C-alpha cells in the first residue's frame, strides 16, 4: 500500500538538495511563454530507459482505459449463477467471480475508474500542494505556518487509518468524494516536498534579483520560481499519482471506497469478502492485483527515471552503460 511512500519521498527530497541541476533548470524563460518543441527534461526522460519503459506501460494502460468499452467482452456486473466461479477460459479470459461476472471485463473497465480516480486526486493534490507549498515557502507568514502545521499532523497521524476513519464518517462514498478526500490528504504530503524545494530556490540569485527589481510576488512565484520547479512538480505529480492509485484501490479493497463503480479495488474487495482465496480460486485476486501492480510499477519506474535524470551521480553510471552498449553495438546515437 503506502509502504514505499517515504522511500520515494526520500528520493524526491534528495533531488532537491543538489544546487546545480544543469539539464533541468534551463534558464528561466523571462517574460512571455516561449513555445519550445519539447522541454529538455522531457526529452531526457524519454531517453532514460527506466522512465521510457514506465511511460510505455502506463501508456498501454491508458489506451486500455480509453477503449475499455470496446475491449471488454462482457457486462462487468453480470449476475449469472451458471457462469459463476469459472477458471480462466477462452470465453472468460480471466475467469468469473462468485456472481458469474467476467473478470477480464472488470479489469479492463476498472482501469478506467482506477486511472481517472488516481489522476484526478493527484491533480487536485498537485494544484493545492504547488500553490500552498511554494506560496508558503516564498511568502512565509501564516500560510507557511498552516502548511507546516498540516505537515506535522501527517507526521503523527498515519494516512491510511485517517482515510479509513474519514471514509467511515461518510454515508455516501461517490467518486468525487473519494477524489476529494484522497487529494486533500496527499496534498499535505506533496506540499511538504515542494515547500522544501521552493525554499532552496528562494534564495537563489535570480529570485533575489527579481525581488530587488521590484517584481510582484505572484510574478516571482509564477514567472521565476515555478518554471524552475516544473520537473519537480512533475515528479511530485507522478509520486502522488502512484500513491493515489494505491490508496484508492486500498480503500476499495477495504470496502471503504466508491463501491458503485467497477474498479480493481472493488473486484479485489469482493474476492476477499467471498473468501475466494480460501476456496482455491486464484483468478479473482490475481488479475486485478497484477493490473494494479503493473500500473504502480510503471509509475515507480517513471519516478526512478526522473530521479536519474536529475541526479548527476546516477547519470555517470548511465554514460557507463552507454559506453558498453556502443562497444557492443557499435557507435549509435547517444
Amino acid at each position, binding site marked *: 500500500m503506502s509502504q514505499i511512500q517515504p522511500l520515494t519521498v526520500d528520493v524526491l527530497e534528495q533531488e532537491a538538495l543538489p544546487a546545480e541541476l544543469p539539464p533541468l533548470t534551463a534558464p528561466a524563460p523571462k517574460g512571455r511563454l516561449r513555445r519550445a518543441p519539447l522541454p529538455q527534461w522531457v526529452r531526457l526522460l524519454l531517453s532514460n530507459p527506466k522512465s521510457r519503459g514506465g511511460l510505455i506501460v502506463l501508456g498501454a494502460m491508458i489506451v486500455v482505459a480509453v477503449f475499455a468499452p470496446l475491449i471488454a467482452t462482457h457486462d462487468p456486473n453480470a449476475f449469472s449463477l451458471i457462469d459463476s466461479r469459472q477458471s480462466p477460459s477462452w470465453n472468460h479470459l480471466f475467469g468469473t467471480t462468485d456472481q458469474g461476472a467476467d473478470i477480464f471485463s472488470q479489469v479492463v473497465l476498472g482501469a478506467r475508474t482506477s486511472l481517472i480516480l488516481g489522476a484526478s486526486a493527484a491533480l487536485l493534490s498537485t494544484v493545492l500542494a504547488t500553490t500552498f507549498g511554494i506560496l508558503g515557502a516564498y511568502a512565509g507568514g501564516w500560510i507557511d505556518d498552516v502548511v507546516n502545521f498540516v505537515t506535522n499532523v501527517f507526521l503523527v497521524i498515519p494516512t491510511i487509518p485517517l482515510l479509513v476513519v474519514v471514509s467511515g464518517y461518510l454515508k455516501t462514498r461517490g467518486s468525487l468524494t473519494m477524489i476529494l478526500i484522497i487529494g486533500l490528504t496527499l496534498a499535505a504530503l506533496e506540499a511538504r516536498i515542494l515547500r522544501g524545494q521552493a525554499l532552496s530556490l528562494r534564495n537563489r540569485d535570480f529570485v533575489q534579483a527579481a525581488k530587488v527589481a521590484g517584481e510582484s510576488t505572484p510574478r516571482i512565484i509564477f514567472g521565476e520560481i515555478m518554471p524552475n520547479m516544473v520537473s519537480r512538480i512533475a515528479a511530485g505529480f507522478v509520486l502522488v499519482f502512484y500513491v493515489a492509485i494505491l490508496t484508492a484501490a486500498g480503500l476499495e479493497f477495504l470496502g471503504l471506497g466508491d463501491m458503485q463503480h467497477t474498479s480493481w479495488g472493488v473486484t479485489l474487495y469482493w474476492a476477499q469478502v467471498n473468501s475466494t482465496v480460501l476456496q482455491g480460486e486464484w483468478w479473482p485476486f490475481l488479475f486485478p492485483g497484477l493490473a494494479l501492480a503493473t500500473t504502480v510499477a510503471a509509475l515507480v519506474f517513471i519516478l526512478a527515471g526522473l530521479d536519474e535524470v536529475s541526479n548527476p551521480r546516477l547519470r555517470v553510471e548511465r554514460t*557507463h552503460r552507454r*559506453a558498453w552498449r556502443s562497444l557492443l553495438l557499435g557507435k549509435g546515437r547517444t
Partner: protein
Amino acid sequence: MSAVATRTLLELDDVSVEYALRDRVVRAVDGVSLSLAPGETLGIAGESGSGKSTLANAILQILKPPAQLAGGRVLFEGRDLAAMKPDELRRFRWRHVSLVFQSAMDVLNPVMRVGDQFVDMLKAHEKVKKADALQRAGDLFELVGIDRNRVRAYPHQLSGGMRQRVVIAMALALRPELIVLDEPTTALDVVVQREILQELQQLKDELGFAVIFITHDLSLLVEFSERIAIMYAGEVIELASGETLFRDPRHPYTVGLMRSFPPLTGPLERIAGIPGSPPDMAAPPSGCRFNPRCPHCDPTDARLYARQTDERPRLREIAPGHLVACHLVEERP
C-alpha cells in the same frame, strides 16, 4: 647525516598507482622509486594532486578502488607487501607501518570513545585484556601530552590539536619501525603545528622509528627531514638532503617551490611562485610533465625543446645523494 644506510627498511621500486575510472585511467603515481633506512626521516613534497597521499596509501596497501597498484613493488625489510595474504597484510599494518592521516579531524570514529579505538587496534594485533589496553592507551596519551582520563572522551569532545595528538599516540602504540605522516598538521594553526612536530621529533629521537613526512609545506620539511623528495604529476623529480635542496635546488619546479615561501632567515625577497596549474593527470603532457609551466622550456633552442616535449627525463645523480630528473640540468650542469 644518517643518509648512509647500512640496510634498507622500505624500498619503493618503480611503484605506479592508477585510478581506473569508468571511461579513463588516471596514473596518479608513475614509477616512483625511493628507499628509506631505519630511523631516517624522508620528506615528500609537492602540490595537491601530485600523488603524494596516494603514495602513502600504497605503502600501507590501503588503496581504495578505483585506485590500484598498477606496477612495481613495495618492499618492507625485503618482503613484498603486494604478495602478502590478506590476513598477513592485516597484521602487518600498524604493527610495522602506521599512518597519520591527512585529515586527523575525521579519522577518529565519531561514535566510539577514543580509548576504545585504541583497544580495538591493540586487540587486532595482540592478546590483551581491555583494562590493560586502556592502561596502555592512557600511558601513550601522557606521552603525547594529553590527560590520561581523556581516553573516555568522544572525538567531538576534543580540540583539533588534541585529536591530532590522539592519532599520533595511536600511531606510536605498537612501536612500528615506520610512521607515515600524511600532511599531519594542515588543519591546525601554525603554533600548534610546530609544537606537535617538535614533540614528534623528540619521540623519534627516543624511540628511533623512521618517518616519511608528506606535506606541501617546504619550510616544515627542510626543518624536520633529512632527505626530501619533490613530486610533480606523480613522479619524483628531485631528491636530495634538505640542506642541499635549500641551498642548491636544481629542478626548475623545485626552484619555484623554494621561492614560493619566505626565507626563515635573511631579508624578505619577492615571492615568485610558479605560474600555471598542475596538469590533468588523465592526459599528462608528453615529455617532461613540467614543460608547459617550465620557464626554461623555450622553442628557440629546438633540440632541447624537442627533448623537453618528447622525452621523459630520468632521475639521475648529479652530485652524491642529489638526484634530479631534468633535461636542462643534464645538458647545462
